[in-house]
């Protein structure tokens, strides 16, 4: 374009000086024709056809002037103008093209921005959803922790209650141990008392420990007359001592009074006699204050001898009353 302008500038003066001697197209017309064809081939034809047409019209006037008066100032001037209009058309074509490119770029920019905004919105939505989920999970964790706290609190209360209960039981145990100790001491005292009481009987009866319990054996000779079941006067004194001892041995003991005879006489008679004698002793002991519910009487007759019935001494030993002191759980 610069070249065209320089050429055009140079030809202004040349045209004014040269006159109309030439019959060929002036340099301006040559340039105008070439530039016009460039304009037609350029985007100007598409974007700004009116400007191309104006260039065409100016070129036509130049051509007409050339036909009328070749090399005239008119020809050169219209050729000059036609070239400028062709350049103008190309420039506005370029302008329109740039404008279109700019519009396309702006549209692309707006679309890209919209996509970015959409992505940002989507990201924000995802972030919000993630945040909501996190909040929900946090809430669940808090609720779980709260429930756990409740359970721990409840367990602590249960533990405290158990500790209290344990303390109470320990106190009870201590009390029980004390009571047991007291009981043991009392029992020991009772046993000592019973032992002392039983020992005191050794002067009036034979006392010995057997598997069935403590057996106090009183000879039948000192208790009853022969064949009788009434207590002799001397027997009452001894039984009074026995009764005293039995009262001292404690309530947990039961007492069995067994009557025994020798083998002379009928079996039935001996059994009856032994029962009566046992009963008489029991009655007397009850009369002396021994608890009736703890004492019973049984006759064994001649069936459980402790000596040989063939001798007088043996028969005397077999005639007897045994008072058996037993633990209540061992009583037969």
């Amino acid at each position, binding site marked *: *374009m610069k070249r065209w*302008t320089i050429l055009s*500038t140079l030809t202004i003066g040349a045209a004014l000086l040269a006159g109309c001697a030439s019959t060929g197209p002036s340099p301006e017309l040559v340039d105008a024709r070439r530039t016009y064809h460039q304009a037609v081939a350029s985007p100007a034809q598409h974007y700004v056809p009116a400007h191309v047409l104006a260039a065409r019209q100016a070129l036509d006037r130049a051509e007409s002037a050339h036909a009328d008066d070749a090399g005239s100032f008119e020809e050169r*001037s219209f050729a000059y103008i036609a070239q*400028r209009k062709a350049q103008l058309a190309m*420039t*506005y074509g370029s*302008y329109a093209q*740039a404008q279109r490119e*700019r519009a396309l770029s702006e549209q692309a920019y707006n679309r890209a921005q919209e996509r970015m905004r959409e992505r940002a919105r989507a990201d924000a939505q995802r972030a919000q959803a993630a945040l909501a989920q996190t909040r929900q999970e946090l809430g669940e964790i808090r609720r779980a922790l709260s429930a756990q706290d409740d359970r721990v609190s409840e367990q602590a209360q249960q533990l405290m209650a158990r500790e209290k209960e344990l303390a109470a039981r320990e106190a009870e145990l201590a009390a029980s141990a004390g009571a047991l100790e007291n009981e043991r001491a009392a029992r020991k005292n009772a046993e000592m008392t019973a032992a002392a009481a039983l020992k005191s009987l050794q002067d009036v009866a034979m006392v010995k420990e057997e598997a069935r319990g403590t057996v106090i054996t009183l000879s039948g000779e000192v208790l009853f007359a022969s064949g009788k079941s009434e207590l002799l006067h001397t027997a009452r004194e001894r039984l009074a001592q026995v009764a005293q001892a039995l009262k001292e041995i404690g309530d947990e003991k039961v007492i069995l009074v067994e009557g025994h005879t020798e083998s002379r006489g009928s079996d039935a008679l001996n059994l009856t006699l032994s029962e009566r004698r046992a009963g008489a002793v029991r009655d007397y002991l009850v009369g002396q204050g021994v608890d009736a519910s703890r004492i019973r009487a049984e006759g064994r007759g001649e069936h459980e001898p402790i000596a040989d019935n063939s001798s007088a001494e043996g028969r005397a030993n077999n005639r007897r009353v045994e008072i058996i002191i037993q633990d209540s759980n061992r009583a037969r």
Partner: protein
Amino acid sequence: MHLGKASGLLALVALAAATGCGSAAVPVGQVTETQASIRAAHELGAERTPLAAMHLKMARDQVQAARAYMADGDNAEAWYLLKRAESDADLAIALTREAEMKRKAAQSRHRIEELGERAQ
């Protein structure tokens, strides 16, 4: 400065019209149109675009030459020179606008390229 020259030219045109010399009429209308185009090119900032500035200068030079023709009573030649000057001034306007639009288009391209880089 250009307005001063324009005023001088109009005075010359008026003088030529008053004297009535030459066969063609004094191209008063064309002077006005050409000066309007030159003023528009100047106001658009044609001097800041090298090619536009060159055409603007050519327009002014041709107006100056036309003034000389009109002073000699050669109004027909003066008219042609004023038309040529107008076409140069119009081209200067177009070149200025084209340069500005190309600058804006480049800016838009650059902006979208930047956006693409940011999006990556």
